[in-house]
Structure formats: structure tokens, C-alpha cells
């Protein structure tokens, strides 16, 4: 049976409400005649402006949970509310527009558009939401500067190191000033030093931008920085605690 963890609003005044609400969310994948449950009725609330991590073993359902929160996958049953919007009520195009405005993604494999430069990759989300050219340029340059890649603005992803690529991905996720940034194992493909600097960067920009970060991770370094930790096992939420976990 699903275990419900209702997260009370954080003690600080910066966390007035939940940005993500899941109620009895079930996700089942069909593999031929076989139904494989990935999430088994998860209910949780994630507060605003927090650095939250979802932890769990491989196959526990972390990525599925993040995909559903990010509105790139839909639950088999249950309800999902992100930024106050009932996602199930939106059309496919409306969900795309919602993602474009409200959700930033940071992927394990960076997933930059290979034919665009660092500058163009960061600028891309602003084009999708129709930011005027001058404002677009100002915000892109500011974000490049914030992630320390002003000198690499013209370089394409294949000319950047892994750490630099992930910095571009972070800048791309943040440039549109989304409500929520989702990061799936953002340090998994980086060495420990680079990973640490990336965590440091994300933590800094999260505090500066007051954006809600939600991670799925195995990385103990990342877990130690968490404001909220959600533990998942076999598709069920088994623990929630404030603060990091080791």
C-alpha cells in the first residue's frame, strides 16, 4: 500500500507552499503481456525554493518520479499538480508550453543540442517562450557569466569538457527562470572534483535564484546538500526527512 508523506511547509518563511503535489500516483509500464509497476501510489508534496533530492537504488523509480514531475511522462493513475496546475487537464501542446515556461531540466548526459554553441544552447529556452532579442541576449550572457563560461560562449558541446557541458546544461535550465529545475543524476558522468564544483554551482544559483531544485541521485555529495530528502524503494516512498542524507 502506498505510503503517504505529507510534507509540512518548511519552517522558513521562504517556503510558503508546495510547488509539486502528487496524490496516489501509480505508473505501470507494459512489456508485452507483462505489467511492470514503476511507481506504486506515491503521494508527496515538495515545497518551494528548496534543494530536494530523491534517493533510491537503481530501478527504484527515481527517474520515473522525476519524469512525471517534469511532465514528460504521465501517471497511469493518481493526480499531479505542478505550480498549481493540474497537468492531466492540459493538452499535449499546453503541457509543452507549461514545460517551456516553468520547468528546467538537467540531464545526466548533458543532452545539449550538438549543432548549437554554448551561447545558443542557453538562449534556446528563451526563444521558445518568446523573450525579446535584447532581453534574451542580456540573460544569456548573464547566465554564461554565472556558470563561468563567458569565454566558451561560441564553442560547441563537442569542444567542451564534461564539466563545462553540465554547466551549460545548468545555465540552459535556469536561464528562463523556471519555478522548478529537475536534475536526473547530474553528477553521474563527472569526476568527483568536477561533480563537487557542479554541486557547488547548483547550490549557489539555487540560493540566488530561489528556484526549487529536485534531484534524483546516488551521489552522497549531492545528498549532503539537500534541504529535503525523499527515499524511494520499489516504487514506494519509504522515507522523507528534512536535510541531507548519507
Amino acid at each position, binding site marked *: 500500500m502506498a505510503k503517504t508523506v505529507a510534507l509540512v511547509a518548511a519552517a522558513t518563511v521562504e517556503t510558503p507552499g508546495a510547488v509539486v503535489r502528487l496524490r496516489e500516483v501509480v505508473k505501470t509500464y507494459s512489456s508485452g503481456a507483462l505489467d511492470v509497476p514503476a511507481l506504486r501510489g506515491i503521494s508527496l508534496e515538495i515545497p518551494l525554493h528548496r534543494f530536494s533530492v530523491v534517493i533510491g537504488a537503481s530501478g527504484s523509480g527515481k527517474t520515473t518520479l522525476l519524469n512525471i514531475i517534469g511532465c514528460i511522462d504521465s501517471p497511469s493513475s493518481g493526480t499531479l499538480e505542478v505550480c498549481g496546475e493540474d497537468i492531466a487537464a492540459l493538452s*499535449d*501542446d499546453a503541457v*509543452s*508550453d507549461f*514545460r517551456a515556461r516553468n520547468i528546467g531540466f538537467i540531464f545526466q548526459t548533458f543532452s545539449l543540442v550538438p549543432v*548549437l554553441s554554448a551561447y*545558443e544552447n542557453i538562449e534556446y529556452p528563451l526563444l521558445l517562450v518568446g523573450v525579446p532579442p535584447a532581453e534574451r541576449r542580456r540573460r544569456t550572457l548573464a547566465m554564461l557569466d554565472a556558470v563561468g563560461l563567458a569565454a566558451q560562449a561560441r564553442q560547441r558541446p563537442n569542444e567542451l569538457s564534461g564539466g563545462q557541458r553540465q554547466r551549460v546544461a545548468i545555465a540552459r535550465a535556469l536561464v528562463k527562470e523556471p519555478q522548478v529545475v529537475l536534475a536526473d543524476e547530474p553528477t553521474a558522468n563527472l569526476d568527483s572534483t568536477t561533480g563537487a564544483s557542479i554541486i557547488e554551482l547548483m547550490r549557489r544559483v539555487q540560493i540566488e535564484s530561489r528556484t526549487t531544485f529536485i534531484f534524483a541521485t546516488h551521489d552522497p555529495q549531492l545528498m549532503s546538500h539537500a534541504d529535503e530528502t525523499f527515499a524511494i524503494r520499489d516504487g514506494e516512498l519509504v522515507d522523507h526527512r528534512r536535510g541531507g542524507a548519507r
Partner: protein
Amino acid sequence: MKLLLKIAFRNMLRNFRRSLMTGSAVAAGALAMLLFGGFAAYIFAGLETNNVQRIGHLTVFKAGYFLLGAGNPAAYGIDNYQAVIALVAHDPVVGPMINVITPTQALVGIAGNFSGDVEASKTFLGTGLIPSNRERMRQWDEFGASAGYVPDRRMSDQDPSRGLIGVGLARVLGLCAPLGMRGCPQLPSARSSTGEAAPSRHELTELAARDRLDERASTDGNPQIDLLAATAGGAPNVVQLAVGGAEPQGVKELDDNFIAMPLALAQQLVYGRGEHKATGIVLQLRRSEDLPAARARLMTLFRQNRLDLDVRDFGELSPFYGQVVKMFSAIFLFIALVMGVIVLFAVINTMTMNVMERTNEVGTIRALGVRRAGIRSQFTVEGVLIGAIGATAGAMLAYLIAALINHAGLTWVPPGNASAVPLRLDVAGRPLLVTGAWLALAIVTTLAALVPANRAARLPVVDALRHV
């Protein structure tokens, strides 16, 4: 759109070799379509020029002549044809469109050569015309497809008894030597007669003497033949024709029967001392594009004036022209279809590979908020870009090759022609052909790109992101 084009262009360069191969297939398609299209266009222009020079754009006949007149042209003479010509020539609508308007007289009869030891006769198909108008018509060259105008002085308005005959007829009538024709076999010494109920030398000479036409004949050293025909009233009539030369007609049946003579002589033969009529009024227009309007106006004009006349265009009078146009159009369509299919599959293959290789990228940009339609547009634009560049390259190559061939000085004998004309590929002068081929290929590449683009757009985001 700018971003779409930027990404499309860079992806094209990223997979340069693949894009090059696909673009080359499109270019080859454009090249084949344009070179053959240019060749066909030149053939059409050449045939049209040839026909319009000979028989004009439109011919006015007495109603019924087109279907029944061949048996007895004299029975279908247009009464008071000069008045009809004046009516048409002075009409404010059709008048300015006309380059030449001239009467003609068709006739059938028997031609005989009884000079010296030769005794030969043959049925003929004759045309009576005004030599100066014929020369003006021969200068028509709207499309620049003529081999070049060379004045022909073998017939003239000043000599009403001199005409031309087909090479085959000249051969049969034993006129090879008198006309200085090369490669012409000697006529057997025995009396030769190929026409049914051919008259004897005595009969023809007697008829000619009776009409005293030989007194008016001006020979100028040209061989003379006798022409026998039935008048409109049914009486036999004979005139003498001075043969100014032999002219190949392209089609053997016509070559063996053809005689062109001054209109007055033809009328003399057909109508004798009766009212001289004409079986046709030929209109050569300044521009072929005026043909439908001119024809419609003529019909209106004749209806308004209660004239029982019919109008036919050169395509109806020369079905061979229509047959050649249809044949080359069918070949062109076939080539275009084959090329279209090749391009279709080449682009589908390339774009499918692109989609497969970039599935993860599709997932990423969908996650960033790009709609399905945006993904569809992205891959479609890439396919269209390759197609557009390939088609443009093909068109430029076609221009270049056509220019080289046109300047090489090659000649050929088109179907239905009796003499060689320059071999040309009319690509540069056919903007509609070039635009049409370019657009057709662009449409094919768009359709081809839509198939994999739709597949990419339908990919679930999470599946696309998982794709390695």
C-alpha cells in the same frame, strides 16, 4: 524560423557526406528532368515553328471541308474569299494579332511529264498559294527554333506558272536530270504510269492545246509538267507548270504527291473561267499564345456575319504534331516519376537515419518545451533544405550543360522534318519548366521528409530521452 533554419543547415553540414549523397540524388533528378524537358521543349518549338511556317496557326475553311473536302476540294471553295480576308484583317481584335493572312487552294489531279522521251504521270496533291506570302510565313520564328531563314526564289508572284514539287514526285516524273537532283535513279525507258486512268500524252497535249495555256507558261529553262484536274463544274482541265525545284517533304507519301503552285494557276485549273474561290484562308499570328483568342474571335466574327465557315488550328491539320507532343510529354512524365521516386526514397532514407541518430536530441528539446509540431517542422525543414539545395544545384548544372550543348554546333533531323536543324536544349528559355521541376522536387522532398518527421514528432519524450 531562423532557429529552425540554423539548426537544419548545421545538421546538414554535420552529416555532410550523407547530405551530399541525398542532395546529389535530388540534383540528378533535377538535371534529368530539365535536360529532357529542355530537349522536348525545343522539339515542340521546332515542330510548332515548322508547322506555323507551312500552314500558319489557323486556317478558315468552308464548313464541312475539314472532314469531307479531301475528296473534292473544288466543291468547298469559299465564296468571295477576298471579302472574308478583308473582314478578318480589318477586325480590331484579331487584325493586330495577324502576321500573314493568305488564301490557299487545295486540289488533286494528275501530273504528267511528256517532254522528250519521257512519258510519266502521277496523281498529285496540290496547293495553290501566294509565293510572297509563303516567303513571309517562312520567316516566322517566335521561339528561335528555326534553322535560319534562307530566301527561296523558286516561286514568285511575278511568275504565275512556276511551282515546286516533292522530291519523290520529281523522281517518278523523271525530272531528276532536268532538276539536277543527285542520287536519283533513272526512270525506266518504258512508259511509266502510276496514276489510275492516267491520260496519254496525246490526250493531255490535246487538252493543253485546247485551253492554250502553254502560251502563257514561262519556262525560264525550268522543266515543264502538265497538270490535269477536274474543274468545279466537272470538266477536265489542264495547265502547264514550270517546275522551279524539288523540295523534300519529310513524309514519303506527301513527298511522292506534293505540288505547290501559285494560287492563280491552281484557281485556273480548278475553276477555269468560273468564279475563282479558295479552299482555305491561312492566318499566321505574330504570337502563338494568341491562338485561342484569335480562334474565338474568328468564330464570333463569322457567326455575326452569317458566314458558314469553320476554323481549324495547325494541331488539328497536322495530327503528327499532337502525337509527338503527347509522346514526349509521356516520356517526360515517366522520367519525372522515376526521378521523383528515387528522390522520395533517398530523402526518406536520409531523414530516417537523421531521426534515429537524433532521437535523444528530440527528447531533449521536447522536454525543453518544443511542441510536436516544432519537431515535425525541424525535420521537414532539414529535408526541404537538402532538396532545395540539390534541386538548385541540378538546375544550375542543367543550365551549364545545356549551354555547352547549344554551343557545340550539333544538328539533327527532327521527326517530320526533311532537313537537319541545330540540336539545342531549351532550358534557359523555359522558366516555367525550371520552376516547375524545382517545385516538384521541393514538394517530393517535403513529402519524403514528412514521413520520418512525423515519426520523430510522435516519439514519447521519455522513450526518446532513453534512446542511446
